[in-house]
């Protein structure tokens, strides 16, 4: 390797480079196919990593917007995800009271939701409805969850007034929904008094929010029950300790009521939620990198293959170059450069394609609601995409280049004669 190094810094490097480039061009189809192999690998790494990084930062941002001092209590055991998504279980009035009585709890905000058909103008759509106790809710949501109104005002309790999310206002109905208009939900008429600013996730923005009492009246759900409880802790109390208190208090009530020990609820702090999301995404990223690495290795083997073929085809040329005074290191340099150039072109192509694809997904994600999402294309990732394939090429080309360099001139010249 020292020999390559010494010849790299001499003036002839430029010439070797142009010879290598010319060699690649003379067998362009094979070169392009080999380059394609690298492009695919780099494309996968760049696009998937930037998308998963983007997802990570989106989720982190959302969790941050929840505020650090919140605790979420949900029915269903977290260790059994199915029971959570089925969402059958609910908190009874006693459960919510037990949560409120736990030490360190400041405010308890219960939430219920279900879907229902809403008609605006001539159009009917199935939409999520959510009930929140507006009186205490607004304060907590404004202060700690970052809710704010884009237009209109908060609904008054005791009146048929609702507020809607951004998606409901702009995307779900063909016609834009304005404030002080009427919407028919489950056959009953309501007035839209406010439109919320985006809450940071497309699903949260697709709700119609109303006061809990109104929600119970409309849906016929049992009074005082809830599907999710958000707890704001008292200033100065320890988040984890309060979470523990809630767990104990809730367990006690349930034991008294149902006589079972089974834990079928989950108490999660906002911090823990971030940890869980971070862990899951971390695993996903490892898997992505592993698979994309396999693609790059396959691409590298493609380079090795092409270079071996190239060395075989150009055996005579190698003989000629040696006969007119080429050192082994010169031959080695030329062939390594060739492999490196193939790798680099693949890297540039893959990076461009990867960035393009990630941006495309980002744009698509904005138009079609799932969640707000930005691909995170860091300079480090770009540099990686441009530099790493060059080294893959060099490593892949090392064996063929060594074979070329060590050829005996007279034997190389005799080929095809």
């Amino acid at each position, binding site marked *: 390797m020292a020999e390559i190094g010494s010849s790299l810094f001499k003036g002839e490097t430029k010439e070797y480079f142009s010879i290598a480039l010319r060699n690649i061009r003379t067998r362009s189809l094979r070169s392009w196919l080999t380059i394609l192999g690298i492009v695919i690998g780099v494309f996968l790494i760049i696009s998937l990593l930037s998308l998963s990084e983007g997802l990570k930062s989106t989720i982190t941002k959302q969790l941050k917007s929840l505020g650090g001092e919140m605790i979420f209590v949900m029915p269903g055991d977290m260790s059994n995800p199915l029971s959570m998504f089925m969402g059958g279980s609910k908190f009874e009035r006693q459960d919510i009271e037990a949560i409120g009585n736990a030490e360190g709890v400041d405010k308890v905000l219960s939430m219920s939701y279900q879907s229902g058909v809403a008609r605006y103008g001539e159009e009917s759509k199935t939409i999520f409805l959510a009930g929140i106790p507006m009186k205490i809710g607004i304060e907590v949501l404004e202060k700690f969850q970052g809710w704010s109104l884009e237009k209109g005002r908060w609904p008054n309790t005791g009146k048929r007034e609702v507020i809607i999310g951004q998606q409901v206002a702009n995307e779900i109905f063909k016609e834009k929904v304005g404030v002080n208009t009427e919407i028919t939900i489950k056959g009953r008429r309501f007035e839209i008094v406010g439109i919320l600013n985006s809450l940071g996730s497309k699903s949260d923005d697709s709700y119609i929010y109303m006061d809990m009492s109104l929600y119970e009246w409309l849906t016929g759900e049992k009074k005082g029950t809830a599907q999710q409880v958000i707890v704001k802790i008292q200033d100065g109390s320890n988040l984890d300790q309060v979470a523990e208190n809630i767990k104990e208090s809730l367990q006690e009530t349930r034991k008294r009521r149902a006589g079972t020990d089974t834990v079928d609820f989950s108490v999660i702090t906002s911090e823990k939620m971030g940890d869980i999301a971070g862990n899951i995404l971390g695993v996903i990223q490892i898997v992505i990198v592993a698979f994309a690495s396999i693609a790059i290795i396959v691409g590298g083997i493609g380079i090795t293959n092409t270079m071996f073929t190239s060395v075989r085809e150009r055996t005579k040329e190698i003989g000629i170059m040696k006969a007119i005074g080429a050192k082994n290191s010169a031959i080695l340099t030329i062939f390594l450069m060739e492999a490196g150039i193939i790798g680099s072109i693949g890297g540039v192509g893959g990076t461009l394609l990867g960035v393009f694809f990630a941006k495309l997904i980002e744009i698509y994600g904005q138009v079609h609601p799932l969640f707000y999402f930005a691909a995170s294309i860091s300079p480090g990732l770009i540099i990686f995409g441009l530099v790493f394939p060059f080294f893959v090429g060099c490593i892949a080309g090392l064996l063929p280049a060594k074979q070329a360099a060590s050829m005996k001139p007279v034997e190389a010249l005799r080929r095809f*004669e």
Partner: protein
Amino acid sequence: MPDSIIKLEDVWKIYLLDKVELTALKGVSLEINPGDFVTVMGPSGSGKSTLLNMIGALDFPTKGKLFLNGKDVSLLSENELALLRGKTIGFIFQEFNLLPNLNALQNVMLPMIFQGVPEKERVEKAKRLLVSVGLEGRIMHQPAELSGGERQRVAIARSFANDPEMVIADEPTGNLDSKTGKMIMEILEKFHSEKKKTIVVVTHDPNIAGYSEKIVNIKDGEVVVNHHQASEILWQK
């Protein structure tokens, strides 16, 4: 009497082909002095190309000693051999052996690139050499765009690129018609008389041999006659 530039002492070359030994050279001893124009003649299979490959430091004796410019070739490292091939020896092949991807100028510059000659200098020199072989109008042409005679002239220009002590040519006119061959030999002779370099040509064409001062006749791997006057062998024929 100057020291010989090429000296072979009892040189043997034995190839092993599928466990069968093939003796190409059987104890050849030969001395060529600086500035000589020597022709090596002999029928095909006589071992003359093997001999030439050794003089060009492309191949090595199985037995015996080979001295080029006073140096024992068997003692040289790979890099020293490359230097020897690049600076001391110029090689002309029967089938021209230009690099097909490079144009005439680049082909002539290639030996200079390997010796690290600065760009400006090597461009000027390569152009000068191409002009001197009458290819001023073909400098930027690819080998595929050149005729056989033109290609061989590029090869001659290339062989003189690093001002070698000796130029060796393996059947330089073998792939050319007699008229073109004559022109090639005239160029070689001109270079020989102008630059006073040693020239060794392998051929089986007596007309080519006529340009040289000395003729080495080789048959079945052995030097048969070492004529010092070309006229002798021509007369014998």
